[in-house]
């Protein structure tokens, strides 16, 4: 069927080079194209704005360095937003490397919040395996699953966890999720079983599969999807970061890929026609 294509095949390495330049050049020469916010991101922003001061929330870092460019800016903007609003942050991780991701963000921003204390306004509970079953166990007895924080301090000595025996007294759960286990499991347990509000940020790859949860039932309250979602959130919280500065490159690269698709199709159909003529 596609015999025709292979005759005029260009070496894919030229395409690689073109894409490399399409991403590198806009990073160096910033254009500063405008960013617009979408409803799902405004919903996430609204959720944090409406959460009363002093509330305790879980932010689950369920990703590793492979998704850092997309999820890290979200995590940073979110944590700053929570601290600005005096929301107390309990960090958990269903992926072992999520612990380091959270620590990386905290160490970067903590100097801007000198009055926020570890153990009072922020705590990192570390990593637990077991995915959905472990989340369900947290919903029954949080203190059984997390007897200590990541430093080995007993949960009873951490004031931020006073009154946290399960999900009952949490303002919301926010999952930064790159796959399984992640946001789907939080929706299924924290919202659909224990009735707590759940929101989250996901990689572009998993966004379409998660989007049906943003619905009337509010299984998810808004969703940050990929780098664009991160950039919109940075815009709303007025903390431009790596997501915002990456959007120019993102735009140009998308354009290049679209051009590739169109050119590839034109090429294909032209060859096909030529072949038909020859065949006649």
């Amino acid at each position, binding site marked *: *069927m596609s015999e025709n*294509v*292979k005759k005029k095949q260009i070496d894919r390495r030229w395409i690689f080079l073109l894409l490399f330049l399409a991403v590198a050049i806009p990073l160096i020469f910033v254009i500063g194209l405008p960013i617009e916010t979408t409803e799902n991101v405004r919903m996430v922003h609204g959720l944090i704005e409406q959460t009363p001061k002093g509330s305790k929330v879980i932010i689950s870092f369920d990703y590793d360095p492979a998704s850092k460019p997309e999820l890290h800016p979200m995590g940073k903007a979110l944590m700053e937003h929570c601290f600005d609003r005096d929301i107390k942050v309990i960090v958990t991780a269903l992926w072992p490397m999520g612990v380091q991701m959270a620590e990386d963000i905290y160490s970067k921003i903590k100097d801007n919040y000198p009055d926020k204390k570890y153990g009072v306004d922020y705590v990192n509970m570390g990593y637990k395996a077991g995915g959905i079953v472990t989340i369900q166990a947290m919903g029954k007895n949080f203190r059984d699953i997390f007897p200590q924080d990541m430093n080995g301090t007993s949960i009873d000595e951490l004031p931020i966890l006073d009154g946290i025996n399960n999900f009952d007294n949490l303002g919301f759960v926010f999952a930064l999720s790159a796959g399984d286990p992640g946001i789907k499991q939080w929706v299924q347990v924290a919202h659909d079983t224990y009735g707590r509000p759940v929101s989250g940020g996901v990689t572009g790859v998993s966004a379409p599969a998660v989007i049906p949860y943003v619905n009337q*039932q509010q299984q998810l309250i808004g969703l940050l999807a990929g780098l664009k979602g991160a950039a919109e959130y940075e815009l709303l919280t007025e903390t431009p970061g790596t997501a915002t500065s990456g959007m120019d490159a993102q735009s140009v690269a998308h354009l290049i890929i679209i051009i590739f698709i169109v050119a590839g199709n034109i090429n294909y159909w032209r060859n096909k026609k030529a072949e038909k003529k020859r065949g006649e």
Partner: protein
Amino acid sequence: MKKTILMFFLFSASLLFSQDIFFEAVDNPNDDGTAIQLRWDASNISSTKMIIERKDDGGEAKLVQKIDKAEGEYMDGEDIKPGIEYVYSFSAWDENDQLIQKVESAVFAQAQWFNSEKISLLILALIITVAILYYIYHAKIGKELYIRKIAGLESIDESVGRATEMGRPILFIPGILDLDDMQTIAGLTILGKVALKAAEYDAEIIVPVCRSMVLSTAKEVVKEAYLKAGRPDAYNPDSVFYLTDDQFGYVAGVDGIIMREKPAANFLMGAFYAESLILAETGFASGAIQTAGTAMPSQLPFFVVACDYTLIGEELFAASAYLSKEPNQLGSLKGQDLGKALFVILLTIGIVLEISGVHFLKDFLMVY
């Protein structure tokens, strides 16, 4: 639930005389009697210090929580036991440390035997369980269960025929996951069918795999197919071989095979991750007829645009059930179909009811 509300009124109505602060303690419904819901609204007064205390069965008052929100709720789950009376008090002080008001509310914690919010879940769980078991039983006693033709499977004859005509091999990839993944098993079932056709048409088949467990099973499947076709002599044990376990190493290996052997037909059936589009692209560029099937939702788009036929998600399992005629798979598939039919019917009725302004079905199915 109604009983709880009634009880709550009996115990606390007399205490709720004040209008300034609203405070109530209610048994948390549908639990094992180990939590009390506390709700307050003190937005009418200006207070700098608010606390909630609790007396257990007439004992000493102890602090439950310091409050910094004028309005809110709190779930007390600290050492609550069913059948004991708890008296909660909400106290508010002004900036001069003068007590403005103290409101009390008493409550019994109760354990429930049935979670009334989950009745719809229970009913649907029972229906689906019964349906699946019923159909598995039917399949086991040998009753014919109809499954529609899967479009992608019809390409097998065409592809194998074309490969024979052109004198080029057929490439089959059963995904990159191990035998414990359902998609790999489904892929191997389809491999059986493809290998059978290949044996009948006398076409060459190549099966590179990336798991050693898959290797031995795939070998058996292909060998059996050649036996079934009555051509055990034509079976080449080297046609099924192991490349490497790692994802990109495997891709590079398969890419090389496609470039060298130029197979006329490619089958990609099983679990795929990011390598899907590299394989499909190389296959497309080599001019092969491609049939793909996977239940990995994020890879399906690439298969659809780069392959000639694609089995989408559940179709892969249906195809495997259709080909293997295995009663467990078939029966289960039929049971799940009944679930889907029920879904469509309930949804249609529900939408009609919603449009006519009747909400009971939706309310019944909703928990919160």
